[in-house]
């Protein structure tokens, strides 16, 4: 108990305290104060996380036990925190990016009422608390508590402007989609309990080699179902674009940087399980890639600035799952990190634009914002370059690591995975620069009133943008691939202990063909040149964008309507369930159950009305009945009973 890291319990507790203060005192606290409390507690967590990270880097990776959470004959769950390389990295991302977004929010949400402002910060703090619990948990149960907590906060924050019914529907959609995934997670946890009676990571991972393939595949598939819900993969991704109904900083924090990476964290954490289940890995790689392509194609035709970013998030998450599927756990975690930087930057930049445009989100009404908002413009450009995979921006390193791993995965399938992945990268570059060009280049297409109103955002908004822009540039430098610099991949050596067992198994089963330097350069060259062409083409094409009333036709229309996935889900799932529900409501409930209950009441009523007639009040009748009764008893006694 004397570990110096014992104090890490403060990391999640601080945001919880912030949540309580802001939540309970929302009517009393002034905006400045609640903003200060909300951001301050996250800063505190960040500093402790930094301390924890440094300790971990020096080799102190404790499993901290605080108290027994569930303690029965056959089930033992401790309230444990696992502080190691993986969780400390996530702690830094969550609290670091989280702090910047809190600071940003103090300015972005300033038009809200005092009460709503504090409510916003309390939700945000509760979110950070849950997310930290998810990451720090030492077993699947603690992770699940955080897992559910972030789902709840996501719901609360998407529906933050609850007076708009569409936003409420988006919130409900997110919650229900997440619940479907959570069920998978929960079943996996039950399965683990059934096998082992505990879900502590170290015990699970130590015992995994004793289990049958069926068990491992089943558990990992169920865990992956959980991940598809939380991390917005096919078939449960449709909630994420709708989740853009929430305030923009929320989209940046929850729906880009942190919560949606929970699935990736969970799989990376259980990497040994997944490495033992090649079937599941194959499914993950395919689903991830399919999601990446599908979302990228949809993003090509969206006109809402946040929708484009949302689909690009789904697409990037697909990349991460591709990385997990081909066993490139480090690459996936690396991409989580860089993606957190540049996607938070892009969302916050978009928020800054929306702020300046007075709530306008349609890119068709923007354009030429470059000269009005220089800081937002520059930082946004950096974000776009990073996500497009331009060297030396961070996205280049992480994306190419995943693509190279896919290429090297095995002989033919790996090449296909790589080809589709690169194609998606080109699309990414294209739609991001379409977004950039439509927003910042060309002429302003909005109303005069909006043009008059245009301004650069205040410091609380621009400073987080600048910090994130710097991170988006340099964030990738911790993972410089071997071909450029021997030993340049600090992240890989840092995360080595987490993935060591998996790497050993992977190396034993199929000899991962080490790519020659020439191939690796060629792969990078193809993706960079392709993306460069795509982004230049998009910039030129869309900087001359003119508003037109011509509606989309052919494939464009399908893409603009998001492949009609929502409509298909509506037709094959929502409508049948609705009709079953109305059947149960009208027939089973009203006619069946109500009929039975009311029927019993009516029968008793009717029967008693008939029996009442016997009570005539005539003494003679009573006596007669009594005599008949006695005679009957007499007869029974004498003649019938033997």
């Amino acid at each position: 108990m004397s570990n110096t890291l014992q104090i890490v319990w403060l990391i999640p507790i601080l945001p919880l305290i912030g949540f309580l203060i802001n939540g309970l005192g929302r009517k009393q606290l002034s905006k400045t104060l609640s903003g200060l409390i909300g951001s301050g507690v996250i800063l505190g967590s960040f500093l402790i996380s930094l301390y924890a990270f440094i300790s971990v880097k020096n080799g102190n990776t404790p499993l901290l036990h605080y108290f027994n959470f569930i303690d029965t004959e056959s089930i033992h769950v401790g309230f444990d925190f696992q502080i190691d390389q993986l969780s400390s990295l996530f702690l830094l991302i969550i609290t670091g990016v989280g702090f910047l977004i809190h600071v940003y929010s103090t300015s972005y949400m300033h038009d809200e009422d005092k009460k709503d402002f504090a409510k916003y910060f309390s939700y945000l703090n509760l979110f950070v608390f849950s997310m930290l619990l998810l990451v720090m948990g030492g077993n699947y149960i603690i992770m699940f508590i955080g897992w559910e907590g972030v789902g709840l906060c996501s719901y609360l924050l998407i529906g933050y402007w609850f007076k708009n019914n569409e936003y409420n529907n988006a919130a409900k959609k997110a919650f229900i989609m997440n619940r479907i995934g959570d069920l998978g997670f929960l079943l996996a946890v039950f399965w683990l309990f059934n096998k082992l009676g505990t879900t502590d990571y170290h015990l699970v991972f130590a015992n995994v080699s004793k289990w049958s393939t069926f068990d491992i595949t089943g558990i990992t598939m169920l865990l992956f179902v959980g991940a598809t819900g939380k991390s917005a993969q096919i078939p449960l991704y449709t909630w994420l674009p709708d989740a853009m109904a929430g305030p923009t900083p929320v989209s940046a924090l929850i729906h880009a940087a942190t919560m949606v990476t929970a699935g990736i964290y969970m799989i990376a954490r259980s990497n040994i399980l997944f490495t033992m289940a090649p079937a599941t890995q194959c499914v993950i790689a395919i689903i991830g890639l399919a999601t990446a392509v599908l979302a990228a194609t949809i993003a090509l035709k969206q006109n809402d600035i946040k929708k484009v970013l949302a689909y690009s998030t789904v697409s990037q998450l697909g990349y991460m799952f591709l990385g997990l599927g081909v066993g490139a756990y480090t690459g996936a975690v690396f991409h989580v990190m860089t993606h957190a930087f540049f996607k938070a930057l892009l969302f916050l930049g978009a928020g800054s634009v929306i702020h300046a445009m007075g709530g306008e989100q349609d890119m068709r009404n923007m354009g030429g914002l470059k000269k009005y908002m220089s800081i937002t413009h520059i930082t946004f450009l950096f974000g776009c370059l990073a996500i497009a995979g331009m060297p030396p921006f961070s996205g280049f390193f992480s994306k190419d690591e995943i693509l190279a791993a896919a290429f090297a995965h095995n002989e033919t399938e790996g090449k296909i995975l790589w080809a589709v992945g690169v194609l998606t990268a080109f699309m990414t570059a294209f739609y991001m620069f379409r977004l950039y060009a439509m927003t910042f280049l060309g002429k302003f297409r909005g109303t005069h009133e909006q043009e008059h109103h245009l301004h650069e955002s205040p410091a609380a908004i621009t400073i987080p943008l600048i910090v994130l822009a710097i991170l988006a540039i340099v964030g990738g430098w911790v993972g410089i691939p071997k071909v450029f610099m021997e030993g340049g991949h600090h992240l890989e050596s840092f995360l080595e202990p987490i993935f060591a067992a998996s790497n050993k198994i992977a190396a034993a089963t199929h000899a991962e063909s080490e790519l020659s330097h020439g191939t690796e350069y060629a792969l990078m060259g193809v993706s960079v040149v392709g993306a460069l062409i795509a982004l230049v083409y998009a910039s030129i094409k869309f900087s001359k964008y003119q508003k037109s009333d011509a509606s989309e036709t052919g494939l464009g229309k399908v893409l603009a309507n998001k492949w009609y996935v929502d409509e298909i889900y509506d037709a094959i799932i929502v409508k049948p369930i609705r009709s079953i529900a109305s059947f149960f409501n009208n027939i089973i409930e009203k006619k069946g159950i109500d009929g039975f209950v009311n029927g019993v009441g009516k029968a008793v009523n009717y029967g008693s009305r008939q029996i009442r007639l016997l009570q005539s009040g005539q003494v003679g009748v009573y006596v007669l009945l009594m005599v008949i009764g006695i005679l009957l008893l007499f007869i029974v006694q004498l003649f019938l009973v033997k």
Partner: protein
Amino acid sequence: MPIYYYIVLAIALFSIGIIGVLTRRNAIIIFMCVELMLNAVNLLLVAFSKMHNLATTGINPTAAIDAQIFVFFIMVVAAAEVSVGLAIIVMMYRNTHSVDVNFLNRLKN
């Protein structure tokens, strides 16, 4: 004398009582018929007691007379009950100016 002389007599008395209760409407006659039934049972009690003792002891018919003493108790209680019953009938007559039980067929009024 065989036991069933007594039994037949008692049954006859009891039946007369029942028929009286069932057919008459005059409260006093019903009351008398109830007394008749009661006494039919008393008669049986005494008869059974005597016969039982004769059968068990053989010689002395007065050897055990518990049941016969019991009958006196019943008669005493019955007398007390009669006084209560008659009082009720008097009250009934005062209220309805009749002793016809069919007038009293409702709980209210």
